[in-house]
C-alpha cells in the first residue's frame, strides 16, 4: 500500500470510533509506524476531525422541536394498527389460510353452542305441567275474551291467529290468561273450561327455542306427571295443551262431533279430526 492509498483510507478512520478494529483500516494504520510523514499528516487530520466533530456535537436541537413532535404525535395519534391489522399485515398466504380455518372452527363451534343452548320440549312440557297443576298463581287475569287473552299472553308473534283445537276455537270456554318467561322466551298461557268438561291450560311459545319441537300441526298426546298433554307446532309456535283431568277428555277438543251440533267450519279442523281417527 503506497502513501496515497493509505491517506485515502485513513481519511475515513476515527480512532476509538465505530470503525475501531475494522480490518479494512489495519494495513493503512500499520503504514503509520513506518512513515513519519504520513503519521504527521494523520495527526493533523485527527486534530481537525476532533475539532469538527466537537463543533457539530455542540449543535442542539430547539427544545420546542421535541415538544412539537410529541404533541403532533399525541394529537394526530397516527394509525397504530390493531393487533389483528398488525398480525394480518405480516402474514403470508399460509397465515391467511390458517386464519380462515380458525374462523371456520369458531363459526361451527358457535353454531353448535347455539344449537346446544336450545332446550328440550320434553323438559318444557314437564315444567308447564307443573306450572298448570301446582302453581297457585294460575292466571294473571280472568277474561273470556280471546282478544284480551291474546293481549295478556304478550307473545312476540301475537299478531298471528292462534291455532286452536275446534272445541276451543274463538276462545270458547276461555277463563283467563297469563304471560311469563321460560329460558328467556315469552310463554303465553290461556286457561279454558271447555264445553266438553274439565280444565285445560294451553301454553304457546316460539318453536325455535326447542331442539325437538312438536313435529307438525297435528296433536301428539303424551302423559307427563300424570297429566295428559297435547302438543303441536303451527306458524312457528309450539303449542302445549295440559289437561288437569288426566283423561281422554283432552282428545275430545279436536272432535268435530262436539262442535255444538255444527259441522266443522274449517278444513284444518276436519283434517285434525281425521288424523285423530
Amino acid at each position, binding site marked *: 500500500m503506497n502513501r496515497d492509498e493509505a491517506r485515502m483510507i485513513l*481519511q475515513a478512520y476515527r480512532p476509538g470510533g*465505530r470503525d475501531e478494529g475494522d480490518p479494512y483500516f489495519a494495513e493503512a494504520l500499520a503504514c503509520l509506524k513506518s512513515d513519519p510523514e504520513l503519521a504527521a499528516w494523520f495527526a493533523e487530520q485527527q486534530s*481537525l*476531525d476532533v475539532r469538527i466533530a466537537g*463543533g*457539530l456535537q455542540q449543535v442542539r436541537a430547539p427544545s420546542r422541536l421535541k415538544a412539537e*413532535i410529541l404533541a403532533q404525535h399525541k394529537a394526530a395519534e397516527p394509525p397504530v394498527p390493531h393487533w389483528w391489522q398488525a398480525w394480518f399485515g405480516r402474514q403470508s398466504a399460509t397465515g391467511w389460510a390458517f386464519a380462515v380455518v380458525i374462523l371456520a372452527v369458531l363459526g361451527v363451534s358457535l353454531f353448535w353452542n347455539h344449537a346446544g343452548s336450545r332446550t328440550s320440549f320434553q323438559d318444557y312440557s314437564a315444567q308447564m305441567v307443573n306450572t298448570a297443576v301446582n302453581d297457585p298463581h294460575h292466571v294473571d287475569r280472568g277474561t273470556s275474551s280471546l282478544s284480551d287473552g291474546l293481549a295478556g299472553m304478550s307473545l312476540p308473534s301475537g299478531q298471528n291467529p292462534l291455532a286452536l283445537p275446534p272445541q276451543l276455537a274463538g276462545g270458547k270456554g276461555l277463563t283467563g290468561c297469563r304471560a311469563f318467561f321460560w329460558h328467556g322466551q315469552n310463554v303465553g298461557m290461556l286457561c279454558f273450561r271447555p264445553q266438553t268438561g274439565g280444565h285445560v291450560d294451553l301454553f304457546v311459545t316460539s318453536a325455535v327455542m326447542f331442539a325437538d319441537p312438536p313435529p307438525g300441526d297435528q296433536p301428539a298426546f303424551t302423559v307427563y306427571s300424570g297429566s295428559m298433554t297435547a302438543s303441536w307446532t303451527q306458524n312457528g309456535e309450539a303449542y302445549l295443551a295440559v289437561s288437569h283431568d288426566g283423561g281422554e277428555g283432552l282428545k275430545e277438543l279436536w272432535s268435530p262431533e262436539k262442535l255444538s251440533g255444527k259441522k266443522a267450519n274449517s278444513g284444518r279442523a276436519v283434517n285434525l279430526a281425521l288424523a285423530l281417527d
Partner: protein
Amino acid sequence: MDALTFENVVNAHYEPLYRFALSLSRSEADAGDLVQQTFYRWATKGDQLRDRSKVKSWLFTTLHREFLATRRQADKFPGTELSTEDGRELAAQTPPPERQLDGATVVEALRELDETFRAPMALFYLEDHSYREIAGILEVPIGTVMSRISRGKELLRKQLVKKEAP
C-alpha cells in the same frame, strides 16, 4: 416494545437527527421539518421494521430520503427562495481559528459543500455510524462512501481555512 415507544425513540435520536438535518438543509426551520417528517414516518411506518436494532439507521435513512424528496420539490419550483437568515447568524458566531470550532461554523461549512459530500461528511462527523452504516443510510456502495469522505474532508478543510482566516 416499551423501549421503542414513540417518546423513547424521539428521546434517543432526535438530537443527532437534527444535527444531520441541519447539515443537509439550509435553515433551522427546514431541519425541524425534516426531523418532524422523519418521526411522522416512524409513527406511521415504523412497525414495518422487523429488525428493531436498526431503528437509528432507519431514521437516518428516512431523513435523508425526505431531504432528497424536499430538494426535488424545490427544484421543481426554483422561484421559491430558501431562507439564508440562519446562515448569516451562524457566520456571525464563527470563533477564532485557534479555538474549538463551534457548531454554527461547522454547520455552515458543511452546508457550503456540494450536496454529494454533505450527507456523508455530516454522518461521518456525527460519529454515530460506521462507514458501512453510512453507506447503508445513503444507499450507495461502501467504496463510494470512502471516496466521498476523503474528497469531502479536503473540501471541508478548505472551507474552514477560509472561515478561520482573519
